[in-house]
């Protein structure tokens, strides 16, 4: 019994039933498969998170985003006063997370790739692009650069999914995706 000492003192030499061995073998192979699946996807998959990261002072990042907005601003989102920014395809685009908004609204073109820079001005936040369902953690002090390629047009929302205090549930942002060429 499992609550008593093994009856055979040298239990290491006891034979193991064949069914048990077979299951261990299958489970081990399955583990290996799952391990190599992640590596395979790095080679042949299209969804791998970039690890390109720079240390940045939060204030410096805010300044970068502000100059980016100034440069490419094309209007405001409805009557919210939030700037809409339409950067050229292939360029570096910025999104700032801060209490409690993702700023600014980005207008991107379908099928084009952008280098998206993410960082926070204050606490940690969660960049959750909906309904696409891409989720990335955003840290203050770390500038994370990833390449994204929208594959559909429409209005997409960024919802904060890292708890960030009293106004967490009001923290959203937006990415608009238009047909290629339509934004220029």
């Amino acid at each position: 019994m499992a609550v008593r000492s093994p009856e055979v003192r040298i239990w290491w030499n006891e034979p193991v039933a064949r069914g048990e061995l077979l299951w261990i073998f299958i489970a081990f192979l399955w583990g290996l498969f799952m391990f190599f699946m992640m590596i395979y996807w790095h080679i042949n998959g299209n969804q791998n998170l970039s690890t390109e990261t720079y240390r940045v002072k939060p204030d410096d990042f805010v300044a970068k985003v502000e100059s980016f907005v100034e440069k490419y601003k094309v209007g405001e989102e409805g009557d919210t006063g939030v700037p809409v920014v339409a950067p050229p395809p292939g360029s570096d685009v910025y999104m700032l997370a801060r209490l409690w908004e993702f700023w600014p609204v980005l207008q991107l073109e379908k099928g084009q790739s952008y280098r998206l820079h993410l960082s926070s001005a204050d606490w940690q936040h969660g960049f959750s692009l909906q309904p696409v369902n891409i989720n990335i953690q955003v840290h203050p002090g770390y500038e994370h650069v990833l390449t994204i390629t929208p594959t559909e047009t429409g209005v997409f929302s960024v919802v904060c999914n890292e708890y960030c205090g009293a106004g967490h549930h009001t923290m959203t942002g937006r990415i608009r995706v238009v047909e290629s060429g339509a934004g220029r």
Partner: protein
Amino acid sequence: MATASGELGIIGGIAARFRTCPVTRLRVDLAAERLIKANAVAAVVFLAIGGLMGLLVALTRWPAVHLLDSEAFYQVLTLHGLNVLLFWIIFFEIAILYFASAVLLNCRLATPRLAWAGFGLMVMGALLTDWAVLQGDSSVMFTSYVPMQASPNFYLGLILFAVGALVGCAVFFGTLVIAREERTYEGSVPLVTFGAITAAIIAVFTIASGAIILIPTWLWSLGYIGHIDTLMYKLVWWGMGHSSQQINVSAHVAVWYAIAAILLGAKPLSEKVSRTAFFLYILFLQLACAHHLLVEPGLSAEWKVFNTSYALYLAVLGSMIHGMTVPGSIEAAQRRNGYVHGMFEWLRKAPWDNPAFAGMFLSLVMFGFIGGISGVVLGTEQLNIMMHNTLYVPGHFHGTVVAGTTLAFMALTYLVLPLIFRRRVIWPTLAKWQPYLFGIGAAGISLFMLGAGTLGVPRRHWDITLSDAILSFDFQPAAYLMLGLNGLFALLATVGGILYVLVTVGTVLFGEKVTEENALAALGPMPARVAEAGGSAQVGRHGGEGLVHLPGTYVLVGVFFVAFALYYFVNWKYLSELWPIS
């Protein structure tokens, strides 16, 4: 019962009072027994508090009810995590450590006074942290990610609690040394004790990680340290946060083996295999802090892939082995008990009306199918992009910690009451239903949170209508349905939880005393058994001996494997449809 007052045993020059257990014939150190009782009672108190908080969380998430305001919601959610995930589980685990050392090894407990000091520290720490959160300025969630800051007492309470738990581990290790020195058992320790040793070793690693990060954070909250790096905090904090869940896994797997042994006379199919599986936990489970860092900046893909898979999924291998050997040992025992017909007579005629067995088996199945499978998928580097910080995460860990650990501990309680508290369970009918109500409730909570998370609903979020946000967004109607169902099943689990507390407290206070005569009956219904004493030759010296086939178990693990593989590939399919990111 002549032994109730205890006999004086002098071993190694140190006096300890013992009684002899009428069921197991083991000598029970009364000091150990008192400590087991105290820790178990504290555990149930914190479960009641934390469980109530959980109900409030679920009722607020339920869109049609939306009970609490946002400030109260975040406060209650912080309390929920602390009280159930830390306080309930760790108090109960300390009780298990004392049981698996002093009681199972037939030994006196090392330094009971120190153990009481540890218990006192844990109680003080838990109360201090709860008090800090109740003040309203420490609603920082269980994880308290910097640079969000709680009041210093929040961290101090956790540190005291951790030190107390560390003392408990030290007492456990000390007891092992005494048992060996005083030769209170022969050969190797029992498998359940081996599982408890696994849990305690992981606990030491866990508590060390906690100290490394919480002490500087406490000093930071007092103003002595200027800056704590956010990424470093998460890395080290999860060395505590995730590894502490591996304490639970080790402990509840040990509990599965214990219940199967006590009720059914199950022996491990192979000591070698089961112990190796525990040993894999010690070697690899600690890598799991990576599970929380898969979509973070600043960490290499190589680091993520290696750590998130516990090297080559070697700790998952450990769990998959237990997932076969636990039902396998039950099938072997039941077949020896005479239930040999067909593939599943052993399972059909298992004591399903004994809450200890029902809870244990439900815990085993749900931990594997819900918690285990979702955990591996969630912990796959790229798949995590679709799930990080959504409700999928609490969906997963309610499958492991609630349907798995909590239900297993509840099941064990129905044996602890007659064996340690020496009271017969009152209201056996209520007790019989309790694991089903709680288990089905917990399963529903898990599954519907997994579903809502798949639809992108964020965790730790007061209002998914986002009605106060400047830029609005509407989640799919199905997400609202999931949260409503989550609320309904939370109600069911609450009924199960209340029954558990009622039956436990009622039994401790008013239960009929267990005597020499009714001791075996007090354990509840169990199948007729082949004679044990002296019968080992015919029974077989280990669980698998002489048995070629365990067909029922093979079918169960086969179903499990197919479900696992299908769900795994479905998620890769979903991922391939996502916007390309690199």
